[in-house]
């Protein structure tokens, strides 16, 4: 049964990632795929603080969020002038460059990562406790995204996506809006990273590579980009379904690749059968 809780926590973390990323790419219209690096920054900051200082978890996670936000503002301010596909590639360069650094620095544990993250909650209910916290945080993020995008800020964001020049000519500062969206979305990735580090107690650079970018992007796009519940559903389906085979008692060397196969097959299937997302909007990227 602990296994179910573990899968639940993972789903919750991915929901946070997908919801935050959806804000950036679906509402903000910013084509970056560097989301996992902010996930990584949150996870590594939290883990390093937890290992090195023993500060309370809340503070460690807050620091993780902070680092993710700072890094995202740096990326946003330097690259938001870059248009379209090139922004995507630039963000990829940023992600892989930072990942290389994490991979080669000593204090991050290099390729083998950090495995001595202290236990914070213990006892038989640990899994369920984490599940509840993660679920609550996921709901909070969804709620905030929903509130943000249905209010006046969200209206300006939609206007920007429809016609950025007209929106700016009405007095809306697009650059600031984009940076704020980016920072918020990446901050939630930092939060997800903090939760991940505390729960799984092990992080390594390969968990945050291009494959992870593709995973989160896929959850958002296949779930329904620019909708509130689409990414949530996408994260749920794409994490939960591959988990099913863990019940088959297969050797562990098979489980990883098999899960990967299920995941990628699902993506390809959805891509061709449900091109407008599970929560189907006609035009991808439109909120209505």
């Amino acid at each position, binding site marked *: 049964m602990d296994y179910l809780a573990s899968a639940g926590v993972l789903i919750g973390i991915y929901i946070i990632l997908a919801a935050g990323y959806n804000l950036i790419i679906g509402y903000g219209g910013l084509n970056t795929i560097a989301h996992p690096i902010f996930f990584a920054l949150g996870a590594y900051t939290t883990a390093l603080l937890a290992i090195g200082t023993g500060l309370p978890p809340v503070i460690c996670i807050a620091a993780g969020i902070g680092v993710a936000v700072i890094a995202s503002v740096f990326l946003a301010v*330097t*690259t938001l002038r870059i248009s379209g596909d090139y922004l995507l590639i630039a963000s990829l360069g940023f992600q892989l*460059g930072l990942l290389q650094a994490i991979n080669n620095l000593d204090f991050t544990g290099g390729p083998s990562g950090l495995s001595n993250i202290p236990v914070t909650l213990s006892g038989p209910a640990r899994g369920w406790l984490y599940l509840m916290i993660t679920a609550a945080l996921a709901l909070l993020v969804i709620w905030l995204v929903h509130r943000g995008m249905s209010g006046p800020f969200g209206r300006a964001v939609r206007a920007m996506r429809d016609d950025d020049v007209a929106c700016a000519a009405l007095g809306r500062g697009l650059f600031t809006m984009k940076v704020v969206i980016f920072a918020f979305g990446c901050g939630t990735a930092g939060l997800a990273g903090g939760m991940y580090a505390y729960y799984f107690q092990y992080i390594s650079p390969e968990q945050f590579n291009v*494959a992870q970018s593709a995973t989160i992007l896929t959850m958002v796009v296949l779930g329904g980009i620019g909708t509130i519940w689409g990414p949530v559903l996408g994260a749920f389906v794409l994490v939960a379904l591959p988990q099913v085979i863990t019940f088959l008692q297969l050797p562990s*060397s098979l489980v990883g690749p098999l899960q990967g196969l299920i995941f*990628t097959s699902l993506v390809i299937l959805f*891509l*061709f059968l449900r091109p407008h997302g599970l929560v189907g909007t006609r035009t991808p990227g439109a909120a209505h």
Partner: protein
Amino acid sequence: MTDPVILLQILWTGIAMSSYFVLFTVAFALTLKVEKLWNFAQAGLMGIAFYTMFWSLNAAHWPTWAGIVASVLLTIGVTIGMEIWAIDVLRRRHSSGLIFFIFTLIFSQFVAFLLTLLFGTEPETIFPSVMSPVRIVSGIAVSDWDLQAVGLTAALLIALYLLIRFTRDGQFMLAVADNEKLSEIYGISARRAYILSGVISALLIVAGIWLYGTRAGVTPDVPVDLILTAVIATLIGGLGRVFSAGMVAVGLALLQSFSILFIASKWQGLLLYGILFFALLVFPRGIPAWRPRRIQPAPKPAAPVQAEG
């Protein structure tokens, strides 16, 4: 001061090592030029090409030529199949760039997982040994592999150049790259051009992975790293400039080779991504030469300058 012989050695080895980078880059740049497609699925093709050769030579014990033929056929087959049943479908739906990005990347991952399942994660090489005979030419070590790599790459690039320059299909490919709609009006099949560019890319990929796999170990994850290098070289070399992308690939390989004089080898990857990131910062809309060269229109008197399109 470093010994000039050492510098020359690094230069030569760097050039030889750049061979497969060049082939992958040209393959990537060609599909980008003709199909307007950031084809990350080429990583998957590399995996298919490599493991076909690996399996047919090491498990089925076929002769070398049969292994190569099998690899070429399968890689081209998958390319054409993907073009017809996937890329073309997405294209007709007017899918966004993101969808193409997801599809091509996920396809590569699918292949990587499949290969992991079939062959495991141990690094494999095409032949049991990656050593090749070395001769010393005026103090520089030149291996058979080096010569083969440089020769094969040069031959393929010349063949590609001749094909584009002097055959109808090559010219059609350029026409479609330049303006697909207009070409179709003139009776040029865009689809044929797409498939041709895919087939050529598949050939280059097989050649590239052959060179790579006879010199270093391949795991199912290696192709993704290789494709990223090709992406970087393509971006810096210039969209729509296939051969200059190839030149940049040589340059990047040399830069990496020479950088061992200054920085630890483990930071070379960072160097590459750093170059990519800063190249884009300086040229946020791509390197200036990316825009296809067109004859400047004669200045019209006071052309309407309006934001509206």
